Structures are given as structure tokens and as C-alpha cells.
């Protein structure tokens, strides 16, 4: 089956909901595992890589969670397919660059994904909407436990699961939450939050993971250390930190609305104005303006419009998703035009932001009646 037929439509993907999903877009837990007695993918020769990939793929495909899954070798996927997987946050950018000897198994509901021969033999992740870090850990823990009955992992009693990079050794676990923090950005408190989070030994990254910028006010928070603590302790700490950040974000939004309503309405009104009227817009600008539109929705400025419309546009206007709608190859300039067309069309039924009563003076106010 072709990848695009397998993946649920963006409209459906955007409708997923979970606890605290106003601020927490998704929760993810990733485990790194390697086969015992086998060189790591980066050092293995091609035939060894292919052999390991086939053995792992067969074992993964047998799992009950993976019935009806999408299983494919990376060389069978087109560049566009791989980019779409990255834009949906289903595979890492590093994995998208792989070809022969690497593979992918994606569960039918797209919540479980096993990357084969990325940096490690196995990179398996559980992805859930909203704040569900514990649930994501349990799901991937179960899959991992089932898989270890079929494969022999490289493990040492002292160092735990052995990984290609020493930064992952131990639990091999990376727990992360993707957060939408426009309030903290607008209130210029984000740097303080990032600093505080860093001090706790946690990392803050951009939209597409390591080394990427924070487009659309979206930040990923994850653990750095993997050795010397149990999985539960790590998940627990991250959950607590995320809960704190949610509180700060809510506070920042409340304070902004109270103290600087004009600043907030100005940003949101301009974002709406551009998105509803532009004839050419880059992916980056679209991402940032959609974030403001989403903020407006959260604040009740667009009654009758659902958040999933913004989330759907966020997915669909990314470069590969946009390209996938057209059979001919689009240049960046052409994509910017089609992106703007799509935005105008989608926002045709969305009315201009409604300013809550009491925050704006009526035009026909009688002079000091």
C-alpha cells in the first residue's frame, strides 16, 4: 500500500484530542535498542545492515500492536514520502535520510512507530495527542517487552541498554512533550523558562527536533540523561515540569489579556488579516501566523471555528504535504502561492476576530453621557 493511502487524512489527524491539548500538542516516548553481537548500523557493512533490518522487521511485524501496520524498507519510499513522515513527526529527519538497509514499521493507528537501523538497530516510539507521557511510556514499554522475547538485545547490567551513542546508554529512553507556548513568547518570558528547564537537565528544542528552530511558538522538551535513573522517575520529572510550564503559559496568556489586550489583539488580528488575504506565503511565515490564529481560538476570538481547522492547515501547508497535492513538481515560489490560495480558501468561512465586550470602546459612544 502506498504511504499516502495508509496515513489518515490531515483533517482526521488534526481532530485527535488529548488531555491539555490546548497547550500540549503531543507526548512521545522513544526507546533505543540494539541487537546483541551485531555492529551498530553506522558501523555495520551493507549486507550486515540488510540482514539485521530483515530480522528486526519480521519480529516487529509479528507483534499484535503491528497487525495491519505499514512496513516498508526506506529505499522503497520516495523523498516526498519520507518528508511527509517527518512533517507528521512519525520519523526523525535522520531516519528520513536513510535508504537501503533501513526500514520502518508504523502501526495502523499511527501511534507506534519502529525505525529500523536509524542510529541504533531499533528506535521505537509511542506518540499520543495531548499530555499523556505515562500512557506513551506504558505503550512503548509493552511493545518493547514483547519484542525482547523475539530478539536478543545488547544489554549490560552496569550500563543498561547499549546504544551507538553514549548519550543514550542506560534506559535508551527519550521522553518528550511538544508544547505550544505563544503566551510565554509574547510576554517575553520564554527565555527564562528555557533556562530554568535547562537547569533541570532537560533539553528544549524546536519543531522538528534536534538543531531546529522554534517555529510557530512550538517547543519540544525532553530528558537528556538516560543512565542512573529509572524510566518512571524520568517520565515523572518531565510530567511535573510540563505541568509547571502549562501553568506559566496560562498565566502569561491571562496577564497579557488583562494588561496588554491591544498587543494580543494586534498580533492575532494581523495574523488573521495576512492569512485571509495573502497571495504568497512561506511555510515559515504560515507556521508563525497559524500559531497566532490558534492562540486567538484558544482565547475565544473566533467563535464557531474549531481548533482542528488550524491544526489541519498547519499540517497541510508544510512543504511536502503541499507538494503531495499536485502531480507536477512545484518550485518554492509556486508552493508559496498555492499555500496562500489554500489559506484564503480555508479562512473564507472564518469571521474576523471578535473582540470581547469591554475591551474596546464602541465607535458610537456618546460623549460623556
Amino acid at each position: 500500500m502506498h504511504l499516502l493511502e495508509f496515513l489518515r487524512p490531515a483533517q482526521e489527524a488534526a481532530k485527535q484530542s488529548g488531555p491539555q491539548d490546548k497547550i500540549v500538542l503531543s507526548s512521545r516516548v522513544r526507546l533505543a535498542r540494539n541487537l546483541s553481537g551485531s555492529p551498530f548500523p553506522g558501523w555495520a557493512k551493507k549486507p550486515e545492515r540488510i540482514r539485521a533490518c530483515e530480522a528486526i522487521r519480521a519480529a516487529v511485524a509479528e507483534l499484535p500492536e503491528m497487525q495491519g501496520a505499514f512496513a516498508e524498507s526506506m529505499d522503497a519510499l520516495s523523498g516526498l514520502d519520507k518528508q511527509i513522515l517527518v512533517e507528521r513527526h512519525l520519523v526523525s529527519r535522520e531516519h528520513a535520510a536513510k535508504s537501503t538497509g533501513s526500514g520502518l514499521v508504523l502501526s495502523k493507528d499511527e501511534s507506534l512507530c519502529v525505525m529500523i537501523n536509524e542510529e541504533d538497530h531499533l528506535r521505537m516510539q509511542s506518540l499520543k495527542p495531548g499530555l499523556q507521557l505515562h500512557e506513551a511510556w506504558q505503550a512503548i514499554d509493552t511493545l518493547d517487552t514483547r519484542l525482547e522475547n523475539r530478539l536478543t538485545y545488547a544489554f549490560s547490567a552496569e550500563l543498561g541498554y547499549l546504544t551507538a551513542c553514549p548519550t543514550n546508554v542506560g534506559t535508551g529512553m527519550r521522553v518528550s512533550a511538544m508544547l505550544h507556548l505563544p503566551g510565554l513568547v509574547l510576554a517575553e518570558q520564554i527565555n527564562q523558562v528555557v533556562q530554568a528547564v535547562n537547569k533541570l537537565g532537560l533539553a528544549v528544542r524546536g519543531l522538528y527536533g534536534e538543531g531546529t528552530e522554534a517555529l510557530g511558538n512550538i517547543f519540544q522538551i525532553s530528558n537528556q540523561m538516560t543512565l542512573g535513573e529509572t524510566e518512571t522517575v524520568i517520565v515523572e520529572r518531565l510530567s511535573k515540569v510540563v505541568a509547571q510550564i502549562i501553568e506559566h503559559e496560562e498565566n502569561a496568556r491571562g496577564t497579557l489579556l488583562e494588561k496588554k489586550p491591544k498587543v494580543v489583539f494586534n498580533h492575532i488580528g494581523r495574523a488573521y488579516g495576512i492569512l485571509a488575504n495573502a497571495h504568497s506565503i512561506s511555510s515559515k511565515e504560515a507556521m508563525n501566523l497559524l500559531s497566532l490564529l490558534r492562540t486567538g481560538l484558544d482565547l475565544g476570538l473566533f467563535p464557531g471555528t474549531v481548533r482542528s481547522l488550524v491544526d489541519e492547515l498547519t499540517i497541510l501547508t508544510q512543504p511536502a504535504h503541499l507538494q503531495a497535492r499536485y502531480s507536477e513538481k512545484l518550485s518554492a515560489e509556486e508552493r508559496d502561492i498555492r499555500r496562500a490560495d489554500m489559506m484564503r480558501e480555508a479562512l473564507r468561512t472564518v469571521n474576523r476576530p471578535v473582540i470581547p465586550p469591554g475591551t474596546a470602546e464602541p465607535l458610537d459612544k456618546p460623549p460623556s453621557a
Partner: protein
Amino acid sequence: MVCKQQEATVHLTQVVEGKIKKLDLCEACSKAKGVDDPTGFSLADLLMGLGASQEIAQAASSGGTSCPTCGFTQADFKKSGRLGCPDCYRAFSDGLEALLKTMHKGHQHVGKAPGSPAGQTQSQSRTPGRPPEDRLQALQRSLEEAIKVENYEEAARIRDEIKAMKVATGGAVTA
């Protein structure tokens, strides 16, 4: 100095997990890592990437010359920051120890282990494959070590974990 090419003009000090970490960077490296903006960077990030190169160099210069299993060499590790195969951890163990210390909280794995029966996911800190006594002993050892090196923050954490474990096993374990 990290890149060892230009004079270090940016000097960083940050407290990470109660430990003071210092780093000297040249201007170009500090810009490349976003360190010129003191508000928005993580020293931990830095240590994982560019900053760890000193430890990687150290790790690569001690111990055996190559891994007997896969033939991976110290030079390969220095170049990529990745190891060749699981046995590399043993082959380069002397040098890796310091590197792991800078990267992680502890140096003894206390999490999940293979050989666990499925469906134990809820238990607080499980020790599949090993009876809880073993795990408890390992924790006790880490606790003593933490106290020895006066890392009280770490010691308190391990103490709490031991406590949680005793509760989780219903007090069946006494130590």
C-alpha cells in the same frame, strides 16, 4: 578550548544538577552554538555535542587501540562520537567512564532490563530479570558511592527510590 583553533574568549560557567561545569570557547564556536545569547542555550546540549569533544578525545586516547569484536578504533570514535558495536563499551571502558559521568546522572543502570514478564508496566521501579534484592543492593551501592563523593542530591534521590521500591514490593524486601 573546544575547537583548539582559536583563542577562547567566551568563558562559560553553569551549574548543572548541582555540579559546576566550565567551558571555554572561541568567538566563532560560541556563535555557532548560540552561546553569544546567554539566555537561550543549554550547557548540557553543548556538552553533548561540541563540548563533549574533550571527553571524547580523552575516551579515545585511553584503553585499547581497537575493539576486538568489530575493529572499531579510538580514532573512529573521536571522529563520529558513536561506537561500533555493543562490545566497544567494554573495549573502551576506561576512557568512556569519564565521558559517561559528564553526560549522565549516575553510572549504574537502574531501569528496565530484558527478561521481564509482560504487563508489569505499572509497577514503580521494576527489576525484570533480577530479583528485587539484587536491584536493591545495586541501589544501596550507588547510594554509598554518592555519599562518598558527597553528591547529596544524588544520594537523596537514590534514597527516595529505595523507599519507593520497598513500598512497591509491599515491604517484603528488607535491607
